[in-house]
């Protein structure tokens, strides 16, 4: 066991901002809340036909019982930290997101560059413990909460979420491997090269560029406050806030992102990818139709057993 190294968050942030100013990096212009996934590219996908709302309803019902059970056992911390919608299930985030390929508009390119925070849901506080009674209560309350929903409830929900995860990876792999997407990718690279940004060799077919793929320096994610680990004592359970973070894109990265947005717009990249994604996703759903039908029947039974408030969604 080792204590935490003291953290000088605000001082460090000031130093990084100063260093950024003399290093040719633009002033930070990133709001606290970066845009979250949403929009036409995401909403129109066949994967959206999966029963996400039913899974959310079940998981919300489980969370309510579990967190109340923990409070009854002397651990009220979970009641203090509400789980945001985007963290309830990974099922609603499979397939393409609005920022899968980087910023969408020139305004976003100017403000965020290729910020890895684009499409990253804001983190929520964590509950940490150095307490065996807490860990035992977590296990027992989780079991109690799932058993109240119905037999095999956890298996059903987790099977669906695992299938969603498998579908997602099969989808992005098939997308990158397809001749049609590789042609779109070549056109994207040619356009960027013509604009003065030739891609380096060896990166393969990618969706969103990362540092090293172009001869352009990318920016940094920095902490600008919070996120300090508390001095824990044995037997303690604490709620700890995540740090506030910013992304500082470089001016060169912004120029690259701007050209990328223009190149994608000129080639109708989003519409062509959406059409291609629809075909791939429909094929995958058809391939797993038997599994999905079986899980849907089990899910319907579970949702029917929820109370009126729990079944909404």
């Amino acid at each position, binding site marked *: 066991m080792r204590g935490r*190294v003291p953290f000088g968050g605000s001082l460090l942030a*000031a130093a990084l901002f100063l260093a950024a100013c003399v290093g040719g990096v633009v002033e930070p212009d990133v709001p606290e809340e970066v845009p979250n996934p949403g929009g036409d590219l995401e909403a129109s996908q066949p994967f959206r036909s999966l029963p996400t709302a039913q899974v959310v309803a079940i998981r919300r019902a489980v969370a309510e019982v579990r967190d109340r059970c923990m409070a009854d056992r002397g651990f009220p911390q979970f009641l203090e930290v509400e789980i945001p919608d985007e963290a309830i299930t990974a099922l609603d985030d499979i397939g393409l997101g609005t920022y899968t390929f980087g910023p969408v508009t020139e305004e976003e390119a100017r403000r965020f560059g290729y910020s890895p925070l684009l499409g990253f849901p804001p983190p929520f506080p964590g509950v940490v413990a150095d307490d065996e009674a807490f860990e035992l209560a977590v296990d027992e309350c989780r079991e109690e909460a799932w058993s109240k929903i119905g037999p095999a409830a956890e298996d059903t929900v987790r099977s669906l979420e695992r299938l969603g995860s498998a579908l997602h990876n099969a989808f992005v792999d098939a997308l990158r491997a397809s001749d049609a997407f590789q042609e779109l990718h070549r056109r994207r690279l040619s356009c960027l090269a013509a604009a003065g940004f030739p891609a380096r060799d060896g990166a393969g077919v990618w969706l969103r560029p990362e540092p090293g793929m172009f001869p352009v320096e990318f920016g940094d994610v920095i902490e600008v406050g919070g996120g300090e680990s508390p001095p824990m004592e044995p037997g303690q359970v604490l709620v700890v806030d995540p740090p506030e973070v910013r992304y500082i894109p470089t001016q060169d990265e912004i120029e690259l992102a701007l050209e990328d947005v223009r190149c994608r717009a000129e080639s109708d990249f989003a519409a062509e990818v959406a059409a291609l994604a629809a075909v791939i996703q429909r094929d995958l759903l058809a391939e797993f139709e038997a599994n999905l039908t079986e899980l849907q029947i089990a899910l319907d039974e579970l949702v029917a057993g929820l109370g009126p408030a729990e079944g909404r969604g």
Partner: protein
Amino acid sequence: MRARTLAVAVAILVSVGVPASANHDKGDGYESCNAGEVCLYDLPSSSRWTNQFAWGAVYGTDYTWYDTVDNHYESWLVANDMSAVVNKQARCDVQFRDWSTGNTWTVGNDYFWREAPSYINQRADLHVLVNC
């Protein structure tokens, strides 16, 4: 003026110390992987280099690995370098994402050592908490 500003920046950085920006434990502050934490490891079969989080995080250039044997921070980044994880979150699974390929890897909160599959090994840019 530019040189003087640079000198000030460097001086502040030196006084703060690089490890502060690369703290290995963003959970309970302890080196061991405890309840509530997502514990990342640099190697698939060793817990020597680690970084631990109580929440979702984008790694960027903000986090480097911590050497638990020699007790110091390495220069190499967590980003695109994670090879194993233990998820001790109380309520949530953890999902790793690679922006370049679009691949994701979801790990349940089962306390087991999990090696990253090849499609995400040394590729993850971030992790988010899901299936809570």
